């Protein structure tokens, strides 16, 4: 059973195609690592799932629900953190979460829980504009985790965190499927960053899906195509490089 399925999902801006006929299969209850270099179209794809931008072509379903008919139902069950977290700078971290929890119709305890889980409890009464970069990122993450939604869409959630923070958040994300029975879609530039967390990975370059499967499958593919297989990171880089070369040859 797939939580998210896309069918030839495409987004073009004028004659530039940011996401090109994407066919993703994100299994329920798993962590899906969405990998790609800068400008590959990761954020664009995630924004389409949230209805923040409209697909130019193609379609997708989330938990069997269709966009755009079931948009509100999809959003009710999805926690998200897209690019830099957004918040009301004039409110404290706690107040920011209270606004979101009111919109989701959650109880007061949900806010305290999200603060606790992200380690923000000691700073909950500080104004969000005075948060450090890492605290802002945690606040964004707390907003996504509110109410333990069945689907989490996290765009580079460890951006701006220190090594300890990265480790902490990685462990937190790792534990989510067991704890809350949720599905996590997480994007990154670095394979090393998510290879320990993700069950399945999808690699995207220039809007096209290059690979989808488990890390073991990635190794097999690499072996078959004669790429170096010692480090997963090298496979990822080789895949991207190869694809870029082919693109320049076509042009």
């Amino acid at each position: 059973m797939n939580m998210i399925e896309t069918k030839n999902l495409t987004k073009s801006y004028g004659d530039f195609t940011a996401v090109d006929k994407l066919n993703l299969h994100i299994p329920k209850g798993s962590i899906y690592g969405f990998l790609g270099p800068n400008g590959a179209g990761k954020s664009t794809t995630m924004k389409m799932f949230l209805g923040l931008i409209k697909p130019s072509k193609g379609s997708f379903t989330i938990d069997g629900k269709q966009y755009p008919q079931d948009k509100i139902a999809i959003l009710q069950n999805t926690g998200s953190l897209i690019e830099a977290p957004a918040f009301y700078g004039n409110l404290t971290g706690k107040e920011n979460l209270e606004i979101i929890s009111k919109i989701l119709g959650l109880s007061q305890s949900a806010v305290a829980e999200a603060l606790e889980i992200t380690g923000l409890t000691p700073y909950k009464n500080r104004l969000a504009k005075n948060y450090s970069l890492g605290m802002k990122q945690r606040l964004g993450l707390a907003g996504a985790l509110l109410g333990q939604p069945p689907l989490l869409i996290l765009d580079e959630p460890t951006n701006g965190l220190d090594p300890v923070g990265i480790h902490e958040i990685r462990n937190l994300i790792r534990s989510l499927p067991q704890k809350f029975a949720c599905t996590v879609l997480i994007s990154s530039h670095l394979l090393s960053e998510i290879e320990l967390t993700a069950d399945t990975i999808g690699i995207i370059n220039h809007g096209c899906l290059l690979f989808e499967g488990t890390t073991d499958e990635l190794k097999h593919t690499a072996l078959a195509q004669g790429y170096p297989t010692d480090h997963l990171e090298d496979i990822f880089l080789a895949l991207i490089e190869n694809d870029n070369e082919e693109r320049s040859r076509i042009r």
Partner: protein
Amino acid sequence: MKIPKECQKIKRTGFLPLFVFGGLFASLVPLLNTALRTEVFIHAKSDPLNVLFDANWQMIALINVLLLTAGACLMYHIEYAGRCMEKMRALPIKESAIFSEKCVFLAITLLGVLALESVSLGFCVKHWFSSNETTVIILLKYLGCLFLLMLPAVLLALLIASLWENMWVSLGVGVIGIFVATMLPMEPSSFLSLFPFALPFQTPFAMINYKTKFISAVIIESLVIIGAEIIFLNVRRKRL
């Protein structure tokens, strides 16, 4: 009791102090005016409230429209400044619902300001005029009239505030709207007095004398402005 979202969002932005001080300042206008010109006022032939509205309402209304324009800009500024609107779009709430919540909140805040001003006018009558005709019921009825006349301006100010992500552009456009309104003929019989920002300058007497005209104007303008906001939100969403 649950605090409404909009009320919580504008914490620490200076919104509430702005309205409290603005309302108090506007309420001082009739007090000072009557205290300084008592003789002229109490010897006027017409009804005390009529005299007071004629002498003070232009000034009070100007303060009110400035307040609601600034308030509307502030309310949308907090949404656009930290890209909060984007976060809101990824939550199960429609942008039109955010607009209507802001309308209700701003309208209620202004009702408070108008109530304060009515109390001040009532106090003037009680203190300086020897008239028993002005009762609380009449004041409440006039307050209702003033509130209705204010509604299209509240909606228009919020529409303008939602159009531009840069608060200063919205504020500029709003202030230009107010200037236009003050330059229009104010006679209740004229058609131009129906401009949304000009309506709050009308007195309850004008509204009662031209009941159908003003009530239908308030209803039609409100519907048109709400329709314009819905169209704008749809167009903006399509362009994403």
